[in-house]
């Protein structure tokens, strides 16, 4: 049952979304198979354990988490492919799993490798199919194609057989086909995976333009932090099927737990134990050292290092986001002691 949306600005709402799978387990080898044949061992796996959040119209949100955390399952529930075991989702006022025509015309889900293009035909043909299926008027179709062509540079590749396109070209076509009907809500699952840096930048640019032009809501998962930092102000972090963070990207880097990384170039080797007294030792590689220190104490600690160590060079940088999020995943545990590497 759809949860009544109180705020008209909310386009995507997940309320205690949960998805559990039953999986069959098998011991390895032939005897294991035989046993499983006679009496299958089943086990319930909770991929998503009650996730709640709301997205506003026009918002671009990064959806992060390690592999198997439940990102794709959540996206599939929000786009109506999977029926939630419990909880409810509302997207543009619709219940996704009913997969009503009005709902499907307003959303899109792009999954890295799973293509909706017809492999043996030119991409153009798949576009025409989508135009017919989504009932897009000719004028709108031409206008959309023109706009997409400007950002994605589709000229020349639309008439080539899809199987003969490069990965990047295929991804461009895939995205264009998925957005041809001008959906208001975009679920993008790893849209840049496997692409080179230039192509990643272009896809990002395209998503940004699309968002600005149509005020579309974008929910994006990616392995590349650059995607997220370039597009999203807000991030959701999921781990083990639970939402562990929902907030500003900058809050992660400037909150009370926020840290900075101090990079040192030493003139003389030091022991790990000694270095650890100045901050958490992240890397020790000969004379190259990286230390994590609390944001507020950066100046004092840096001064101490300069005084007590033989420092050839010192730089202070923001830690890479992977590391920040990794820290978040371990936030309930004690900071792990750094083993001496030397």
């Amino acid at each position, binding site marked *: 049952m759809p949860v009544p949306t109180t705020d008209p600005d909310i386009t995507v709402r997940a309320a205690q979304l949960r998805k559990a799978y039953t999986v069959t387990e098998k011991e390895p080898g032939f005897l294991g198979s035989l046993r499983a044949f006679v009496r299958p061992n089943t086990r319930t796996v909770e991929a998503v354990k009650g996730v709640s959040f709301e997205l506003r119209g026009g918002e671009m949100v990064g959806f992060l988490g390690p592999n198997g955390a439940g990102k794709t399952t959540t996206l599939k529930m929000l786009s109506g492919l*999977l029926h939630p075991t419990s909880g409810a989702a509302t997207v543009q006022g619709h219940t996704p799993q009913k997969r009503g025509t009005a709902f499907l015309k307003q959303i899109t889900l792009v999954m890295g490798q799973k293509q909706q293009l017809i492999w*043996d035909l030119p991409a153009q043909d798949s576009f025409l199919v989508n135009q017919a299926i989504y009932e897009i008027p000719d004028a709108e179709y031409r206008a959309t194609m023109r706009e997409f062509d400007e950002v994605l540079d589709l000229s020349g590749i639309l008439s080539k057989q899809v199987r003969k396109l490069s990965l990047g070209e295929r991804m461009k076509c895939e995205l264009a086909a998925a957005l041809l009907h001008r959906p208001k809500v975009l679920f993008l699952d790893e849209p840049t995976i496997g692409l080179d840096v230039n192509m990643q930048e272009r896809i990002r640019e395209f998503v940004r333009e699309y968002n600005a032009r149509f005020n579309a809501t974008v929910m994006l998962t990616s392995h590349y932090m650059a995607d997220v930092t370039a597009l999203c102000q807000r991030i959701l972090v999921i781990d083990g099927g639970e939402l562990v963070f929902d907030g500003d990207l900058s809050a992660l880097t400037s909150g009370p737990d926020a840290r900075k990384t101090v990079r040192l170039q030493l003139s003389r080797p030091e022991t790990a134990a000694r270095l650890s007294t100045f901050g958490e030792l992240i890397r020790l590689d000969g004379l190259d050292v990286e230390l994590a220190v609390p944001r507020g104490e950066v100046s004092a600690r840096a001064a101490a290092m300069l005084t007590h160590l033989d420092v050839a060079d010192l730089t202070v940088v923001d830690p890479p986001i992977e590391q920040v999020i990794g820290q978040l995943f371990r936030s309930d545990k004690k900071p792990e002691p750094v083993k001496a590497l030397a």
Partner: protein
Amino acid sequence: MNAHTWRKFRVLMATQFAHMTVYRAEIVIWMLSGTLSLVMGLIWMQQAASAPGGEIGGYTARDFASYFIATWGTAQILVVWVAWELSFDVRQGTLSPKLLRPIDPFWMHYVGHWAERIVRLPLMFVLLVIFAVLTGAQYTTQLSHWLAYLLLVPLAFTLRFLLEYCIGLLAFWFEAAENFQELVWVLYAALGGLLAPLSLYPAAVQKVAAFTPFPYMLGLPCDLLTGKADLSDVLRGFFILLAWTVGFGLLRALMWRHGVRKYGAVGA
């Protein structure tokens, strides 16, 4: 039919036709590999020729030739592989992009099959003429019978398509459905009349067959062309096929609704 529906049909048909022409060599191979009815036809012809009186159960060698060539051609129009496609889609997760579109994937497959028929037709026709000339097969010259055939066979195809679709949907529950497909094919071949004209079957088998849709899908249209059945048989057969078609249409809708709920439990 409104303008949007017509446009969807037209575009899907054109695209699927283009798609199928890529696979024309495959189509020819599959077409030539379905020889069961031809082999059976050759044996029955040989037996009739050497039988005292030159006929078996009222069929001369030439009658057998007419019947089995018609069976071969009709079976070509009734070829359905949707069970394999669906089963694959469900297992590999390639159903997902199809589910995201505001159109039931059923229609893509259905139109695709008809588009393939168009690719198949020219060579099939040439072969039919060659077979008929070689064996002296003879067919009805009554236009009404041919029109009735053209009415019956698309319905038979639709029924077979729905039946196979339901088998393919079993993949939601059983992970793989290919062997169910084979089981039903055997019934279709045996009871449809691929092995012999149904009137030559033992009486008990004929009775059982009458309770299945198969004799009306294959045997009846062929009997019509060879002059062994008349329009009243067709009328009866048509309504029986229609009833089965409605039945399987409902079953498909039901299975689809429940199956899609289970989808994703496999791969994710």
